[in-house]
């Protein structure tokens, strides 16, 4: 395929025809006219049975003969210097086979949990016994774990508002002065931890200088590269390094790097001359594997009576870890196009574990502040929140999502017309309200990746890539794309991911795995199809271009060979093709990224302050929807995670020691089955045209809107906003007491 093609792009009633330059050699791109057989259907998750049956082996499940158990010894102070490290006593403990230093004496200690040493022993309990014998001396310094007490922190008054003056800004000040209605608010979130259920960790085994690693990883090649470099830097002669991550128990952004624990695991295995499994425990997961930072946001803005936003002034302060970075909060640009605005952000460092990207970094927190502010502004101006969004958001996909969502949700009827009062028919103890919020994300994909596709003479088909499926369903995507090209059932395709001796693929970040890899996989399958087509054409004496693949048959129409008969034409060596990821087509995309709209309804218990989310609805796009059922799962899952963030999750630190107090699942609260609202997700498939499949990312966008929609629903219920996440009963009771006439 090469040259210019005309693609019909878009969705529903919003379509356009675009001339697109397709790179030489790529598979012919899909568009709105493409009739799919298996793409976009409710195909089952390929590895679902392995997971449900408990037979899937995650890194934590790997048991090797002679395997030892590794453990990291960590700092108990938040800030200071390591003055002495003594390892001999630990080395003498029963079962101990290796003890290594991670931090040298004289080096800084930067947070409670900072890595000091590592131990490998024949059981985890023996390793823990030995850890107590490691001699650590510190010179402690005064520490600070509250970002609002950090250097550069703003002054916050008793009401929770930033009290510092705004610096002058001619345009913004002017616009605010001319606005019909002006409003200001300060919004705040707390630290959220990724809480992947499978903790971080590895199993490492050396065979001479060759290293084989099982890693709970969301970037197999990233881990591989890091470990190879680190082992050589440590002075170990390193041959081949292979990483396996066939099943990964969650990542959510925290598992891009092999981490200190990964390096320690490999080093311990080398020192002990035995395989080592080093998995972090739940406390370490909460405190040493990164987090979504806290943020304080102050917004002031202005709107005209007709609902048009005219001014936007934002200053935010990120509550970051010791590296003072990663704390930014994103804003909904789609409402703010062309208006006078200012955006300021400052990251503040504290003596805690640094941030790591967490599902839509910066977005759930930023959108919470922005969307709640907009609802407050709307209330002040007497405008319906939906109308305010529609007035200022011209994005064509989201406009459709607002319309569809509001209709399906019953927005007009569901809104509480008198926030702070019970709705007719409800028990007066409870206040009902509903809210909405938007989402936006990139996720166009790109980069380099490869894919091996094989068709064997016995009819079996393989597709292989060395990146990971952390639960997104990428393996199933691979099988479905291959099946679509070859006209067979997805169950006939064996898709393998997670071994770095297979072609390379991206880390699972930015919601780019599918959009990056799908075109590559399709390309490999398309090339394999061309080869098999040639064999069949030769056999039947027809031109190759007349050979079709459909319904498990191959041929020009009449006759058609069965799949098995077609494959019998393949010799002992399988058809084997290597797919390639061509760059995204220039100027081709119908949309540069994805949108999203969500709605939520809550019941607030005025006696106890408990917020119950009764229902949530999302309308979400992701370019071409490759797997309908699995895409919906992603969206629903992100909505629940967002609900949990909005209502329950926060890291609680003891200030005096800098140590996390709720580093468990007792008091770090994650929404459970009994907290589930009624949920609905409508996938809006958009032929995006920027690659041969037109798929865009999905994992993150629905996370963006969920907490904001819930916060807005609480605001509609009570009439007083709760501006500080998580929305726990104590905060709700305060808001209830602030109702007019309360």
């Amino acid at each position: 395929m090469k040259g210019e093609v005309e693609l019909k792009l878009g969705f529903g009633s919003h379509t356009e025809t675009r001339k697109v330059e397709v790179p030489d050699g790529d598979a012919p791109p899909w568009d709105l006219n493409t009739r799919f057989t298996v793409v976009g259907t409710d195909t089952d998750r390929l590895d679902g049975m392995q997971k449900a049956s408990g037979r899937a082996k995650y890194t934590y499940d790997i048991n090797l003969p002679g395997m030892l158990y590794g453990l990291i010894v960590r700092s108990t102070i938040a800030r200071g210097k390591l003055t002495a490290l003594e390892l001999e006593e630990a080395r003498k403990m029963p079962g101990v086979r290796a003890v290594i230093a991670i931090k040298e004496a004289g080096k800084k200690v930067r947070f409670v949990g900072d890595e000091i040493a590592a131990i490998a022993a024949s059981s985890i309990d023996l390793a823990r016994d030995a850890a107590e014998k490691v001699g650590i001396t510190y010179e402690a310094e005064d520490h600070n774990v509250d970002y609002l007490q950090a250097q550069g922190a703003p002054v916050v008054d008793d009401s929770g508002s930033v009290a510092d003056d705004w610096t002058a800004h001619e345009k913004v000040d002017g616009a605010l002065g001319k606005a019909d209605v002006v409003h200001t608010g300060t919004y705040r979130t707390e630290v959220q931890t990724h809480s992947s259920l499978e903790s971080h960790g590895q199993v490492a085994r050396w065979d001479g200088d060759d290293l084989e690693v099982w890693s709970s990883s969301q970037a197999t090649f990233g881990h591989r590269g890091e470990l190879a470099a680190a082992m050589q830097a440590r002075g170990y002669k390193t041959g081949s390094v292979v990483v396996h991550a066939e099943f990964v128990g969650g990542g959510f952004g925290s598992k891009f790097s092999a981490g200190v624990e990964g390096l320690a695991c490999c080093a311990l295995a080398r020192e002990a001359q035995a395989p080592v499994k080093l998995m972090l425990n739940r406390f370490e997961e909460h405190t040493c594997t990164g987090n979504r930072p806290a943020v304080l946001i102050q917004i002031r803005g202005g709107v005209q009576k007709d609902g048009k936003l005219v001014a936007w002034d934002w200053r935010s302060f990120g509550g970051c870890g010791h590296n003072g970075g990663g704390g930014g909060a994103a804003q909904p640009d789609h409402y703010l196009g062309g208006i006078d605005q200012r955006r300021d952000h400052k990251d503040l460092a504290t003596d805690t574990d640094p941030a790591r990207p967490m599902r839509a970094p910066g977005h759930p927190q930023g959108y919470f502040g922005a969307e709640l502010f907009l609802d407050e502004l709307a209330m002040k101006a007497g405008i319906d929140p939906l109308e305010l969004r529609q007035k200022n958001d011209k994005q064509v996909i989201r406009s459709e999502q607002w319309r569809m969502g509001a209709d399906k949700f019953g927005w007009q009827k569901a809104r509480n017309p008198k926030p702070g009062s019970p709705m007719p028919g409800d028990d007066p103890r409870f206040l009902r309200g509903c809210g909405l919020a938007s989402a936006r994300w990139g996720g166009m994909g790109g980069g380099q990746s490869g894919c091996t596709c094989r068709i064997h003479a016995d009819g079996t088909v393989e597709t292989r890539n060395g990146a990971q499926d952390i639960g997104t369903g990428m393996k199933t995507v691979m099988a479905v794309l291959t099946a679509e090209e070859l006209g067979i059932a997805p169950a006939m395709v064996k898709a393998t991911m997670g071994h770095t001796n297979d072609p390379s693929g991206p880390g699972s970040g930015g919601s780019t795995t599918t959009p990056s890899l799908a075109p590559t996989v399709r390309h490999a399958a398309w090339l394999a199809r061309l080869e098999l087509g040639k064999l069949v054409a030769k056999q039947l004496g027809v031109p190759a271009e007349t050979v079709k693949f459909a319904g498990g048959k191959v041929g020009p129409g009449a006759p058609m060979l069965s799949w098995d008969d077609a494959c019998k034409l393949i010799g002992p060596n399988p058809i084997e093709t290597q797919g390639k990821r061509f760059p995204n087509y220039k100027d081709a995309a119908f949309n540069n990224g994805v949108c999203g709209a969500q709605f939520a309804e809550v019941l607030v218990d005025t006696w106890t302050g408990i917020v119950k989310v009764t229902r949530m609805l999302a309308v979400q796009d992701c370019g071409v929807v490759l797997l309908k059922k699995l895409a919906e799962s992603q969206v629903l899952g992100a909505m629940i995670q967002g609900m949990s963030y909005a209502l329950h999750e926060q890291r609680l630190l003891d200030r005096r020691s800098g140590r996390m107090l709720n580093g468990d699942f007792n008091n770090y609260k994650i929404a459970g089955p009994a907290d589930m609202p009624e949920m609905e997700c409508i996938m809006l498939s958009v032929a995006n045209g920027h690659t041969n499949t037109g798929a865009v990312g999905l994992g993150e966008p629905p996370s963006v809107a969920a907490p904001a929609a819930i916060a807005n629903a609480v605001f509609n219920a009570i009439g007083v906003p709760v501006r500080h996440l998580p929305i726990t009963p104590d905060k709700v009771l305060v808001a209830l007491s602030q109702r007019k006439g309360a």
Partner: protein
Amino acid sequence: MTREVEDPHGSAFSRRAFLKGASVAGIAGATASAATAAGKTLLGRRKPEVFGPGEHEIQLKINGKQRLVKVEPRTTLLDALRERLDLTGAKQICDRGACGGCTVLLDGEPVNSCLTLAMDAQGHELTTVESLSDGDKSHPLLQNFVACDAMQCGFCTPGMVMSSYACLQKRGKPDRAQIRHDLAGNICRCGTYGRIFAAIERTAQAGGR
């Protein structure tokens, strides 16, 4: 072979099941099932047994089969299953009984294997997720988990399956409130709850338990 002992003073002693040839160390923990309505104990007081702190071999009945495994007293059932018997379906997630990822059935009831000493599991019927499939055959509940896409990363899934299975066994056709109630001890970070409810309901409707 069971041997029952009685106390002439009338206070009951626990019954113990002796297995021919098995070492005494392997048979700690009374088998309540071995206690019968018939009869009091009659012989002299049996001294307490003391195990550990080092390792010794015990017998656990898992998925219908007797398995021998070396454990210390401090070894949890979860660690015994995962690290010593390579039954890795039950997962190590929070290790404190707060997330349900380690759920197995003990005499048909879901329990946290991380909060059960391996030695305390002796004499009980243990059921792990591995019992619900065999080669290509699988329990309808598992098939419905797949059909309803009740998993994403899959790490909570075995625990969810066991709680779901127990729910179906106990209630036959549970309603939504009962399902939420029975699964309330299981956490999913990926957010698959709604799909899991659907999988249970689908299994119940088809009469599968």
